[in-house]
């Protein structure tokens, strides 16, 4: 099996003059939980729909399990992909059990596969109820059960925590981790980093239709390159001395210098020492992943 299960090259979707997704090079490692992040309207759903061939890209292509995903190949590939796009599916006038029986017949599955999916989302006690009377969380779980029943290698979930209460969100995280443990690759989108931060081991951040970051958590922290904070004697004068590095004075009386790598940091400290400043502390500003995400998506890129 290849190391990436989903690979896109220059994936683009345009509606008239409006570009919704632009030159996306997405790469999802096999077996990972891929957190697909971005503010509302960033193009996450559109991208996921192109991965599933629900809509055709304007240009670029999608490869899934090493094969091009096109209108000709999609039905074959879709047998190995479970998905939940936008709202959860389900026929409201039927019970949960009838909805699952329908999936079973449609896909030619056996009873065990269906039971496994129902138990995975812990819905076994609600199967006699009509879906119309389900809570949003139950509908969401039924939708996931319908996607899971075919025992997919790849699961694509679009905002699965939308509308769930904190307990439901935690349960979703547990489910995703368990699935990943079973070897299913999961792609999960959200506009809230906090919801998938702890679950995802690879992150892709989309903003304005462009991928502004793709990699692991720690890579994201490095890429975000936080300010270097220097505590020293006479910070006013130090800030003036480092003007060419766009240094500024913080409220705490520290000198903050943006965009420095380690070598440059050493150089800056040496320069200050040479000028006779007494350095008492040099550190990177601590940032939460949330800060990084906000900075990235607000600024539109690294």
């Amino acid at each position, binding site marked *: 099996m290849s190391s990436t299960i989903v690979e896109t090259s220059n994936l683009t979707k345009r*509606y008239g003059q409006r570009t919704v997704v632009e030159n996306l090079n997405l790469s999802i490692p096999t077996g990972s939980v891929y957190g697909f992040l971005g503010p509302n309207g960033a193009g996450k759903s*559109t991208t996921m*729909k192109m991965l*599933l*061939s*629900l*809509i*055709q890209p304007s240009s670029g292509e999608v490869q899934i399990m090493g094969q091009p995903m096109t*209108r000709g190949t999609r*039905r*074959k590939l*879709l*047998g190995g*992909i479970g*998905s*939940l*796009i*936008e*709202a*959860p*599916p*389900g*026929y*409201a*006038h*039927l019970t949960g059990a*009838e909805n699952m*029986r*329908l*999936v079973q*017949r*449609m*896909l*030619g599955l056996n009873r065990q596969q269906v039971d496994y999916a129902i138990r995975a989302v812990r819905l076994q006690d609600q199967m006699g109820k009509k879906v119309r009377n389900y809570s949003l969380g139950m509908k969401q779980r039924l*939708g996931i059960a*319908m996607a899971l029943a*075919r025992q997919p290698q790849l699961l694509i979930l679009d905002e699965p925590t939308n509308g769930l209460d904190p307990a439901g969100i935690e349960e979703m995280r547990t489910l995703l981790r368990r699935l990943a443990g079973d070897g299913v690759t999961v792609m999960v989108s959200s506009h809230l980093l906090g919801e998938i931060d702890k679950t995802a081991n690879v992150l892709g951040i989309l903003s304005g239709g462009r991928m502004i970051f793709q990699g692991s958590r720690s890579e994201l922290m490095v890429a975000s390159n936080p300010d270097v904070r220097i505590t020293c004697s006479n910070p006013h004068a130090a800030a003036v001395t480092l003007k060419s590095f766009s240094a500024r004075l913080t409220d705490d009386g520290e000198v903050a210098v943006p965009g420095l790598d380690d070598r440059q940091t050493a150089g800056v400290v040496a320069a200050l020492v040479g000028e006779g400043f007494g350095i008492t502390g040099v550190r990177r500003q601590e940032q939460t992943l949330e800060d990084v995400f906000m900075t990235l998506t607000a600024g539109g890129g690294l």
Partner: protein
Amino acid sequence: MSALSAELIKLKRSLAWPIVVFLPIVLVLAGVATQLADGRTPENGWHTVWLQSVGFYGLFPLAIGIAILGSLVWRVEHRGSNWNALMSGPVASLRIVTAKAAVVAGLTALMQLVLLAAVILIGKVAFGLPGMLPGEYLTVTAVLILATIPAAALQSALSMFLRSFAAPISIALVASGISTGALMAFGNAALVSPYAVATRAALLGTGSFVDTGTITGSDITAILAATATLTVLILAVTTMALDRRDTRI
């Protein structure tokens, strides 16, 4: 088969059932209402009852009935993200299109059987007609069941592409009106329209509009040939269109 058996589950608690049962009954009653009110026996016995109920039914109520069934069958797919789920599964577009068309055609067939039963019941119970409905009308019912398949496939396609419940029904009304006109003007050449095929079959043996009153082999052959050709054509075009279509944003 699997797609079709899945479709059958969706028919549970469906509003399609009351349509299948009540539409033909109401139409038969409407057709014979004046005679029932006057307490007269239809002058030509079974033939009159058939002409007044089935003959009228075939002009446009039949097309509307098929259209309503089509819209009801597709309505559930346009709700929530059921469409996305349907299109992101491994079931081929042809099987989805065929299964849905088969369900609409099957419900329509049941509607014809209810119609037949209603005619017999009215004839025997309300009018006390002697004997039985002439056997030729059983043949007509069988032909009618087949002849509604193209219209069922077309209405299923319209309701698939149009999210509106009412739009496909209005199209059916207008198209069946035009088709009846075309039947009058061009005879069996009008059988290029699926609605004309259904109407022509319903008129078999009635001696009204285009029908001569005698059921001929050539008429039946023309109807069945049009049925087969149109069904294959409509299913093929619908499948191609579905395959090329983007899901809505």
